[in-house]
Every structure is written in C-alpha cells, then in structure tokens.
C-alpha cells in the first residue's frame, strides 16, 4: 500500500495539467474532515448487518468512526474488522439510515432501517452540503432507483412525473433530449433550460450521461438554492452525482435489458376509396372537374403512409461496472469503472441512436488531503429523422405509390404526386432514405475535486471541470425527387466537424464549525469559466452514386460539382466571485445566504458584471419542545421562506457587436462572383443581464417516524430586464432572428405538493408517492407599449402566457342560407356574404363586419395548469412491483396535423372519421368539403375561409398516462449463494407508456416542439414510444 501513497504526488499535477477535468461538490459528508488520531490497539470485531426483515445486507460500508479504517459486508451481511475496544462503528449503505454502534465484546448484529424519504440525506446546495432536515430551500430529490426503471436513454426522460415543479416533454425520436422546464418559462429568449451540474461540472448536456451511473439527482428550484449559480441559475439547477466505489471487496455488477418499441398511437386515416369519396364532394361543391385519382382511385395506389414509415423499434441496454475501495489508517481509496451500451433502433424507419459510455470515478483520502475524480467518455452515434415525416405521412395522398419506377427524369424512383394526385407533401419514405443525416459525438465530461483541510474547520478546495465535445455531422443527400415541391438539387454531402471545449475552475475557502449551539458554514470562492467552439465544414456536390441510401462514394473528394466551405470560432468566458453562508441555531432556526458577482464576455464592457444573491429562513417547529410534547406523532415539521435573484446570459456570443457580413456577393458580369461586404443583421446594442427574482414559501411535514411525508411550496418569480428578441418590423432590413433587447418582464407562480407513505416493516413492504404542481405564466411587459411576438398560431403579449394561442374563434357551421344572410354585424353588414350552408362561421370579434386577422383572440391555454405524478411500489418475498402514472391537465394543443387534414381546399389525406357537412349530414363542427380555385369568387372565398387555422383546431391536451410498470423477482440469497460467484440476481419486466387517457385526437398529447413560442403546437411531432422490455441485474 506504500506504493499507492507515493503515486498521488505525481498524480495530482498530472490531473491538473493534462486531464483538465474536475471535481465536484458532492456528498462531502461521506468524507468527514479528517482527524489523524493515532489509533489505539485494535482487535478483530465481527458482526452481521441485516435489513428490517433480518436478511443479510451485502455491501454495507463499516468504518471505525473518525478513521478511514473500514470494510464492507459480504453477501451474507457479515464483516470482520480490526477495531479498538470502545470504538464506534459507522454503518452506511445507500437507501438506509446510517447507524453508529459501539464495539462490544462478541459478534455484533445490526439492523439497518431503510431511509424514509431520504430525510437524512445530504443535499448539495451550491458549494456546501446540508442535511436535508436543515434545508430551508425548495429542493427536490428524485428517487433515482425508481427512475432508473424506465427503459430510456437519458435521465431526463426517466425523472418525468417523479418530482414537483419540473415539466418534462418527451418524444420518441431516438437521441433527442427532452424539453425540461423548471417552474415555468423563466425567460423569453434567453432559453429556459436548467443548468446541470454533474459531479461539479456545469453543463447544458446530459443526454450522453449514462443513467445507470447516476447515484443522486437533486432539483434546485428556488432562488436561495440557485442564486449561487449566478448567471446560470435562473432556470433552476439539476445536480447529478454519479456512483462511486465503496470500501470493501470489489464488486461487479451487470445489468441488461432489451425490448421492443412502437409509437403509442397513430392516426386512423382514409384509404384511397374513402379519400376519393370526400375529395369528390370537395370538387363537386367547387364546381371543378375531378383530377385522375379522385375520379378513379381504383386505378391508383392505395398506400398506408404511416405503415410505410413506422416499424417496430428495439431498445437494448447493457452495463457492467466494477467498483471497490480500500482503506487503511491514513488513507482510503475508492474506484468505480462502469461501461454501458445503449442502442435504439427507431420506430421511424432510418433512425437510430447508439451510445457507448465509459465512466471512471475514483478518489483518494490521505490525511488532510482528499481528491476525487469523475470522468465519462461517451461516444454517441445518431441517425436523424429528416424533414417532417409524421406530417408528410398524413399529407401524402393514399393514391400516391411509395415507389414509382417510371418516375422521370429524376430517377430516384419515388412516388410523390402528380396532377392526378396532387400534393406538395414529401414522400416520407423518400425523405428517410434519399438522405442520410448522422451525428457522431465523442464527449468527455469530467471533473477533479481536490481539497486540503488546514484545520478540521477550514479547508481549501479546488474544482476543475472540463467538457469536451468532438463531433462530425454528416448529411448525404442522393440526387432525385421526392416531392413536387423540392428542387432537384445536385446530390451533395455536407460534413461539419468541430470541437467544443468548456473549462471550469473554482477555488473555494470553506469554514465549517459548530460553536456551541451555532452551526456556521461560510465560504468564499473565485471562479473562471472559458469556452471555445470551433467548427469546420464543407459541402461537395454532384456525386456519381445516387442509389437511395448509398454511402459508397460519399466522401468530399468524390464530389464532381461545386464545393463550398465554412467554419467559425466562438469564444466566451466568465469570471465570478461568490460567497455562501449556512447557519443554524440549535438545528432549529435556519438561515442561509449567498451572493455571486458574475462577469460575462457576452455583454459590452459597461454592462459586463451582474450581482446575484439570495437568502432563506427556516424553522424546524418539530424540534420545539411544545410540539414534541403535544404531538409526538409529528416527526418533522418545518416552515421555510426564501427570496433571491439570479441571472441569465444564455444569449450566444458577440451579439452586442454589429458585424460586417463578408459574403454578400454579386456576379457583376453574370458569371464570376464579386465579393461584397456590409452589415446584414442588426446588433443587440446595450444589452445587459436578465434577472429572475423568486420568492418561495414552503412547509414540510413528517408523521409517524416520517413514514408519512408531506410537503408544499408556493413560489412566485418575476423575470426583469428579460432578454427578448423584440419582433422587428421587416422594414428594418434585419432578416431572421432579431437582436436582443432587455425589455421583457414575466412572471411565474405555482403551487407544488408532494406526499408520500412508505411502509418497510414486515415481509410486505409498500410505498406510495404523489406529486402535483401548478404553474401560471404571465408576461408583464414587452418591448414597447402594445408590442407582441407572433409565432404561427401563437402570440406572446402582455397579460398572457408566453406563446398563448392567438386565433380567430371558430363559431360552428352555417346550416341554412338564412343563417348566412342574417349573420351581420351591428351596422347590418353581412359578415360572410360568400358563404353557403355548410361553410364555417367565425366570430367577428371586432364587429367590423368581416373576418380577418384582426378578429383573433387569445387562448391562454398553451401551458398545462397542473401536472401530476403518482408512483407506488410494493415488494413481497423477492417479488417487487412498481408503477408510475403521470400526466398534465388544463391545457389545449393546436393540432397541426388535424388542421392540415381537415382542410379540404388543399390536398392531403383525411381522418378516417372525417365527415364534412353535407345536406344529409348537418355537422356543426366540420364545414363542407370545398376545393380551392372554385368556379366563382364566392366559392374561392368560402374554400379559403373554411380552411382557416382557427380555434377549431385547438383541442384539450390533458392526459394521464401509465408511464411505467415494472415487475421484478429477486432470487433469494440462499439460492444465489449456492451459485458460485454470484451475489445477487434480479429479473424484471418493464412496460413504458402503456396506457394513455386523453381526449386529444392526435397520436400523442405529449410532444416536443422545438420552437420556444410554439410549445403548445403539435406539429406532427414524433410520438412517444410504447416499450416492453425484459431485464436482468446480476451481482458478483
């Protein structure tokens, strides 16, 4: 072991200089300040550790208190350890309450009690850790063990429905990270994604973190917990701590699962004959002749486009880990090596996601010095969906064949419509096969955390973090046509590669001492962050090999046509000074405070620095004698309040500087390109920090030894100087994204409830946990008086939530000509003079006697009013069962797919139950079928009017979903111990997204829309997947 002692001196500088990855502020409690006592003479102590049912608990860490001398229990829960008489042993294991026992003569038997609701866990709060019971902030810990039951690629998907205040939207798209919003949309254009801190590394990306490696996940929600993250804390913080090796005999764990996946649902659509029947109504009503496939669908194809693009996908996940640690009088070490493979074959043809991860976590404690390291290498390979396959699948007519060998002269051989079957949709089979887009990522996320204790109450800590991404994005598109409306560009290959590097260094001086009844923890710190992204790419065109899906010959050298290159560099940096205080009096009265001053390169020098801070107060009423005496069944009662401010600089780089575009070119002689340069987009002059102020009130209650827990929070947050893109008049000549300005204000308010019950005594154990969150989002101010931000079916304006729907109200269908003629405004003007019975009626909200954009009104229903989760688990004699129900309610969804299919003026497929108004079927909700370009102007106007994207396509988006059901069987230890080498074995079956209850007509009420303002708009999103898997967990 001497050798081990020697190596660290070389190891540390090597880590600092060569491996720029760094450490984390995580569970410091596991490494209490060291006191290098000289230990008295030791004798062997033996003992056995059991769970509440008396079964031996393997892998429990047994330490002689105050030393690093320890071991861990074997498969039967037994241990042997040299410990001096009179010493105290500390027994700890994840999921169990840590116990201390005095060494007595004779074997010890210790029964560990399961940790109820992790009340005694240690929570990372910025740069300090705190016992959960002393927490006065709004912080949620997620039950990671339960979350890991979800057969999904990212932890973000897995924690959905398991905590309050976190809105998560998933999709079935392989490799797509979910949308995660903590406590409402806190920024308009500054981004609303939380900050992730993985073992101390600040990052935006946790898609590539292997969920199996995660030990703890904590969500920081209020300002008192997040303001120490300053300019990155405004949208909440998710702290992830990965697993580490435990002192004792090395263990090997193997887990594996595999299963099948299908989209949860799909549209029921008309076939060719049904489709043509409705189209004939549309053409007849418009007085127009039938196109070929409308007249005679039997002579054309009958394609079920959804079946053509969907398939049964597969998911597979394999993990192996090796962990362990050793301990001696002056040192202890731990290590964990974990390798994982996650592989998904998408339910959409041509998509997949494969990820390989390798994690190496290790640590050394030697006297006053301690170092922990954590690093993951991830290699991910994604094949992306192209275009809008789910929208095209409903848009393409059934009378169009998937393949059309006679298609000419663009000989890719796909069917895509013709005058006989006229559509501007794209053949979705074609789009998935003629083009191949892949992303190849190599990502390192790591950290090193080194600490030296000058005294047991004063330590210096250095955190270094690094994230490095190397990527290659390829887009190979073969020559050929897949739409009537896409240019027959030459085949091309675009290859874009680059590296993004982020470095973080934090220096922290920490004072932590209990002085009588006063617990004081104060720290000061200084930090720098740097990032640099470089990108290089090229496009080559006109490749010889044009077979769909062809990869051969798709290298840049093989292009025979024109080429182009691109590349750029982005740099940013941040400098921060911070301090944090945690104080308690008698563990009863709790105070925290924090302050951070951040400087960011993203702002002009005069606005570069911002100050952020927060404070909180807590009162553990249950520690008061009057309550202890009067209500002994109350095991925990705590009231807390917090207030603070944090910031957001998530606005891209250099945006305060106006730049000259150097490629504004023009070919003056009609051939050679002359270079031109000029400013083509406006600068974000004068921008400064966006600040979010949050007030939080909370109450925690625990009853009957915390078997019953209840917690409630109310928060209100106001974002000031919000960085927004004010919608600029196009007349200013700024194309695309407008520049930023600090002119918005928005507010989020909400309640969060969490309740749980856990019964761990006896052979039958069970627990229930429920959570419910509400959120109300409201814009208080935008750029100018009357300013709005319009985006598709939505408009963001003062007094409404971000991205509120803004639509003309649909008011039914005219049943008679009299109704048309008598539908007048106050001045007696007939509002829809062109209409006939069967045409749509809209509300003339401004009373001007006509229907147009000015009649649009707000529908503030784009964000779920509440979301909920209910999970339960039970176990009996080795059989375990758990389920999660999750959902959202009180919102509407604008259904783009239905608005496409239900318009009869423009060709698309129809819903199978689509029944437009006819004299015999007097629908009050669906206007008559009417093709555009009709014989009279009235018919043309009516066709246009009927097709408006009005409130007709707003639907109730509430849903409840049986998200996860897992049933498992753990083979009893007695049997396992007979199998040489095995220490544990569990097999299980899991179903994900099994049942959905909703009124929504689209395939899935839960969807991802990447457009910030259109989160309530379902643009034929990739539906979630129903997954069935079987798995095995093996311990050696």
């Amino acid at each position, binding site marked *: 072991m001497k050798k081990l002692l020697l190596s660290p*001196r070389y190891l540390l500088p090597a880590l600092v200089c060569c491996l720029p990855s760094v450490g984390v502020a995580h569970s410091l409690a596991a490494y209490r300040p060291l006191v290098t006592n000289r230990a008295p003479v030791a004798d062997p102590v033996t003992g056995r550790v059991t769970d509440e049912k008396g079964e031996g608990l393997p892998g429990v860490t047994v330490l002689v208190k105050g030393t690093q001398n320890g071991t861990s229990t074997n498969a039967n829960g037994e241990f042997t350890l040299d410990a001096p008489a009179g010493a105290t042993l500390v027994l700890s294991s994840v999921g169990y309450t840590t116990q201390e026992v005095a060494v007595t003569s004779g074997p010890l038997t210790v029964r560990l009690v399961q940790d109820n609701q992790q009340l005694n866990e240690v929570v990372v709060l910025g740069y300090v850790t705190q016992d959960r019971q002393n927490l006065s902030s709004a912080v949620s810990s997620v039950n990671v063990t339960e979350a890991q039951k979800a057969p999904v690629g990212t932890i973000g998907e897995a924690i959905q429905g398991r905590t309050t205040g976190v809105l998560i939207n998933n999709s079935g798209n392989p490799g797509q990270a979910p949308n995660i919003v903590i406590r409402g949309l806190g920024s308009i254009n500054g981004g609303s994604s939380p900050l992730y801190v993985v073992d101390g590394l600040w990052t935006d990306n946790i898609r590539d973190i292997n969920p199996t490696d995660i030990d703890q996940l904590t969500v920081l929600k209020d300002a008192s917990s997040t303001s120490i993250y300053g300019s990155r804390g405004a949208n909440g913080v998710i702290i992830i701590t990965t697993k580490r090796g435990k002192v004792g005999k090395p263990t090997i764990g193997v887990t594996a699962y595999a299963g099948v996946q299908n989209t949860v649902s799909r549209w029921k659509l008309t076939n060719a004959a049904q489709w043509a029947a409705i189209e004939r109504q549309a053409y007849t009503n418009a007085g127009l002749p039938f196109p070929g496939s409308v007249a005679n669908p039997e002579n054309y194809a009958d394609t079920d486009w959804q079946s053509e693009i969907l398939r049964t996908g597969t998911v597979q996940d394999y993990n192996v880990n090796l962990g362990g640690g050793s301990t001696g009088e002056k040192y202890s070490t731990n290590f964990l090596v974990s390798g994982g493979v996650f592989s998904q074959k998408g339910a959409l043809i041509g998509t997949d996601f494969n990820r390989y991860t390798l994690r190496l976590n290790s640590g050394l404690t030697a006297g006053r010095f301690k170092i922990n390291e954590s690093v993951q290498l991830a290699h991910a390979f994604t094949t992306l969906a192209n275009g809008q396959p789910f929208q095209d699948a409903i848009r393409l007519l059934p009378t169009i064949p998937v393949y059309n060998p006679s298609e000419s002269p663009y000989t890719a051989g796909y069917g895509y419509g013709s005058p006989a079957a006229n*559509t501007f949709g794209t053949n979705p089979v074609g789009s998935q096969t003629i083009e191949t887009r892949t992303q190849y990522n190599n990502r390192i996320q790591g950290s090193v955390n*080194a600490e030296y204790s000058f005294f047991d109450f004063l330590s210096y800590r250095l955190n270094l973090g690094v994230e490095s991404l190397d990527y290659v994005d390829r887009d190979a598109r073969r020559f050929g046509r897949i739409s009537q409306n896409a240019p027959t560009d030459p085949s091309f290959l675009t290859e874009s590669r680059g590296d993004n590097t982020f470095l973080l260094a934090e220096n922290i001086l920490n004072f932590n001492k209990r002085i009588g009844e006063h617990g004081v923890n104060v720290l000061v710190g200084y930090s*720098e962050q740097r990032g640099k992204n470089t990108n290089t790419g090229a496009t080559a*065109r006109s490749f010889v090999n044009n077979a769909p899906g062809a990869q051969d010959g798709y290298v840049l050298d093989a292009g025979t046509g024109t080429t182009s290159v691109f590349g750029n560099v982005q740099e940013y940096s941040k400098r921060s000074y911070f301090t944090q205080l945690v104080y308690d009096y008698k563990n009863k009265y709790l105070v925290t405070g924090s302050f951070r001053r951040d*400087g960011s390169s993203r702002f002009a020098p005069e606005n570069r620095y911002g100050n952020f801070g927060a404070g909180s107060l807590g009162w553990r009423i249950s520690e008061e004698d009057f309550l202890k005496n009067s209500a002994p069944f109350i095991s925990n009662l705590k009231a807390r309040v917090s207030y603070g401010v944090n910031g957001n600089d998530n606005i891209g780089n250099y945006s305060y500087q106006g730049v000259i575009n150097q490629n504004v070119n*023009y070919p003056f002689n009609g051939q050679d390109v002359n270079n031109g340069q000029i400013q083509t987009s406006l600068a974000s002059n004068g921008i400064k920090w966006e600040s979010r102020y949050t007030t939080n009130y909370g109450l925690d209650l625990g009853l009957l030894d915390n078997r019953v827990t209840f917690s409630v929070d109310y928060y209100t947050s106001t974002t000031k100087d919000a960085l927004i893109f004010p919608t600029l008049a196009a007349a200013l000549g700024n194309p695309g994204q407008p*520049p930023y300005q600090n002119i918005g204000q928005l507010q989020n308010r909400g309640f969060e409830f969490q309740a749980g019950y856990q019964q761990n005594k006896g052979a039958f154990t069970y627990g229930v946990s429920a959570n419910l969150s509400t959120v109300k989002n409201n814009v208080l101010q935008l750029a100018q008086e009357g300013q709005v931000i319009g985006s598709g079916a939505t408009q963001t304006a003062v007094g409404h939530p971000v991205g509120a729907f803004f639509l003309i109200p649909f008011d039914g269908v005219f049943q008679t000509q009299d109704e048309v003629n008598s539908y007048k405004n106050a001045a007696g003007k007939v509002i829809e003079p062109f209409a006939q019975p069967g045409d749509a009626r809209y509300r003339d909200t401004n009373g001007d006697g006509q229907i147009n954009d000015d009649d649009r009104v707000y529908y503030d229903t784009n964000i779920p009013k509440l979301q909920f989760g209910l999970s339960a688990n039970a176990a009996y004699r080795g059989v375990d069962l758990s389920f999660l129900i999750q959902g959202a309610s009180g919102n509407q969804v604008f259904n783009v797919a239905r608005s496409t299919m239900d318009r009869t003026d423009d060709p698309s497929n129809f819903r199978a139950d689509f029944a437009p108004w006819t004299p015999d079927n007097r629908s009050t909700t669906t206007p008559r079928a009417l093709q555009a370009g009709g014989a009279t102007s009235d018919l043309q106007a009516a066709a246009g009017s009927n097709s408006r994207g009005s409130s007709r396509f707003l639907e109730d988006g509430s849903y409840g979903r049986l998200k996860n059901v897992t049933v498992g069987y753990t083979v009893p230890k007695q049997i396992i111990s007979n199998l040489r080498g095995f220490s544990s074995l569990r097999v299980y079956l899991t179903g994900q997204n099994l049942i959905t209850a909703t009124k929504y007509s689209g395939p899935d009420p839960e969807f991802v829309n990447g457009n910030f303002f259109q989160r309530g708009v379902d643009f034929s999103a990739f539906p979630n997947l129903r997954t069935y898997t079987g798995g095995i967990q093996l311990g050696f």
Partner: protein
Amino acid sequence: MHFYKRTAAALLGALALTTGCQKDLLDKVNPNSPTVGTFWQTQTDAAAGVTAAYSALQFPGTYARWLHFANDIRSDEGYSLSPWTDLANFTRFVQFDYDLEPTRVIWEDHYRGVFRCNQILAYVPAIQMDAAMQKTLLAEAHFLRGMYYFNLVTHFGNVAMILEPSTVTSSPMQATVEEGMAQVVSDLQAAVADLPVANDVGHATKGSAEALLGRVYMQQHKWAEASALFTTVINSGKYALVANYLDNFTIANENNSESVFEVQFSSVNQGGGQDVAGASEGFERAQFFGPPGIGWTDGRARPWLLTEISEKTVSGADDPRRDITVFHYPMLLFGQTYEQRNVPTTDTFWHKYEDDRTQNFENYFSGINFRVIRYADVLLMQAEALNELGQTAAAVPLINQVRQRPSVNLTPLTATFSQAQMRTQIMHERVCELAGEGTRWLDLNRWGLLKSQGTLDVLKAPSHDPDFINFVIGKSEYLPITRTDLTADRNLKQNPGY
C-alpha cells in the same frame, strides 16, 4: 508530512494555474467578422458595400422568385394551379394569411436592400477616397434604393419609409403612395445626376436611372417628364435593339446593347443559404415556372397570349416572339413532346427565361440575367408618352423599330392612328414584345384597367383571366402588409380592405 506539504503546494500551484488573473479574460473579440465600427474606412469598403446592395436584387423576394409571381402571375398574363393552394390563391387575389411567404418575403427582401443602400448613403460620404468613385457609388446606392422602393410602392402602396441605417429601436413612419413615389423620384433624380454614362458591366448607368425614372413618371402620367428622359436615353446612342429577340432571355448574350438594366444571376455557386460563402447566385424563376416534369409550374402563361401574339411576319410566318414567350402544343417541352410528358395539349407555359435552349432540366440555379428594362421597352414607353402628349404620329416609327427587329420582322405600321387607336395598338405591342417580363402589372395600373368594374369585367372573362373575379377595387391593387410589421411597428397600418 512531506506528502501533505507537497500536495498543498501542488494545490496552490494549481490555483495559480487555473486563475491566471488574465486581465482581459472577458474581452472576447469576434474573430469571425469585422465589426461595424472598424468597417467603412476605405474605398474598398465602400465598393464592397455597393456590391452588397446589388446583391439584394437576387433574393427570392426581389428578382429571384416571388416578385415575378406578383408581377406576371397576378397580372392577366399568368395564373397558377399550384398544389400549394395558398400560393395559387395569392395569384387569384385571395389571401387570408398576411404573413404568407410570397407577400412577406417580397416586403422583407426589398427592405434588406434598402437597409444596405441606407448604410452606403450614411457612411460612404465620410470615407476619404477618390471623389469620382465616391460620387458614382453613392449614385448607385440612390438608384438601387429608388428601385427597391418603386417595387415596394407598386405592390404595397403605403410603405414604411426608412432612409437611415436601421437600429434595433428604429420605428419608421408609413408613407402614403404619393410620399413613397416622391422618395423614389428623389432617389432616381440623384442617380441620374451622378451616374456615369458608362459604368462597369452589371452596374447601373445614367441610362438605367433615366429609363427607370421615366417608367416611374409614366405610372404617374407625367408624360412630358417621362418623354424627356426617354429622349435622352434614345439620343445617348448607347442602346440598340439586338437583332435576335431571343438574345434578351438567354444566358448567351447578356448585358447586350438592348439591356438598360439587368439583374445579374449566375449558376456558378449552388450552395444554400443567403449571404454566405458559396451561396447560390441563381435565378429561380425558371424552376418555378417550368413545365411539368421540369419545374414546379407554379406560374403558367394564359392561353390568350397565343391569340394576342399572332401577327404574321413579312414572310408570312408566325410572330416568332410567340414561341419564345409561351410553350404551347405541339412545341417540345425541354426536348420532349407534350404526349411524352403526359401534359394536356391545351396547357400553356412560360417559355421566356427557361433554360431549355442550353440544358434539359431546371433547378434553382439558372444563370440567366433578368432584364429589368430593355431598350425595346424604352421605345414603347416613349411611343406611349408621345401619344399621350398628342404626338401620335411620332409614336409610329418607335413602334416600328420594335416590330421590325430583324428576327421579328413584322410589317411596319403605316396607318394613321387616332390617339385612342394608338393606345390600343400600344397595348397590343407591349404584350407581344414584353409579356412575362414584369411590366404588365404596371401597364394595367397605368392604363386604369384595374380601376373600374367595366374594365375588370373584360379582364375576368373566362377566356382571359377569370382570377379577376376575386379582384376588389380599392383593395386588390396592393398586397397586405405583413402581420409581423403591423404588430412590431405601431406606426404602420394595414392597407385598405385587408
């Protein structure tokens, strides 16, 4: 205890290493582009800026694509059967979405050009550079801004008027049609004054500005002012009709003697995006108007053009301009028959500016330059101006020049015309010579054919252009101003009727 001391020292070393106290840590200069503050210093900068102002002529909303829908397809010369119903409706005067791409992009892209001109006019005067060059560059910016605003006023009427470089807080006022036209005239007068008679290929010349200003005056019925400008252009001796009519619409003979101003396109770059290296400099009209199997056929030629362009040449042949203007049965469509392409024989398509003379396909990268003003147009406009000024007889020889271009060679007009007869004759001549070249929309307006129900009833005849059944007087003359601008800028009001 050496170990601990060394580790402590190493930690302190690491502290120094990681917090180098770099003073300028937060000063990040954009390495990708120069900034506005460092540009506009040299003659090279000024010239590059002007090139950029020309570059805006190639946007989809300017001359690459959508403007031709607004000019040609909305006019009675063209129509659309696009499967994109909203696009077809747009050409039929039916529009519900005011942010619909064609109208929105025409508005946006012209203002992107205006922004560039405004920068040149604001910054170039302060540059120390060759005075003559400076004068020319500023005059080119005036010319281009006048042209951008002329198109805007033509199609949107009451436009936002912005004449300074925009900033994020700019809030332009809305100008009436009269105010808008006054600005156009003022810019073009400045261009006429300072542009050289001869300039580098592709650049505006004094003749370009005079002809365009003349066209503007024509729209205002300022016949004398227009005529005076056309006289200068004609007498400059710089322009002549090309012998071969076809040379006006192909890549072969660009920037020729007949070209008064043309927008330059090139197929040399085929990259995506705008204003990035390698981005397309191509003309997209051929793809959008191309016959089935070749292009989108989103814009078609009305069949009445065939009967209008049906005079015989001196030798008794059909007017050759007909087949150059319109594809019709039994012409070959890019080398194949109507039957081979499975196209109804009654269908007619635009042939002008198609690339079938040099290739058997279309894409978004046609290299054919678009002739904004041809000398033939100048001659016909002068004929019209003179007729309106009562000099009807003087119009005849101008028209005959156009009719007797060697490759056209119709019989010359010899009859004596009344002023009204001459108006009718000029209407006919302009269709035969200029159909599909973006002048018809101006003509219809200038001739007042969109102002009365009587003339509209003629236009909307089933055999002519039934799309005009949807034309609403007082509304459909102009496109709706985009919703985005109305919501962003409270100074702007929607056009009447929308």
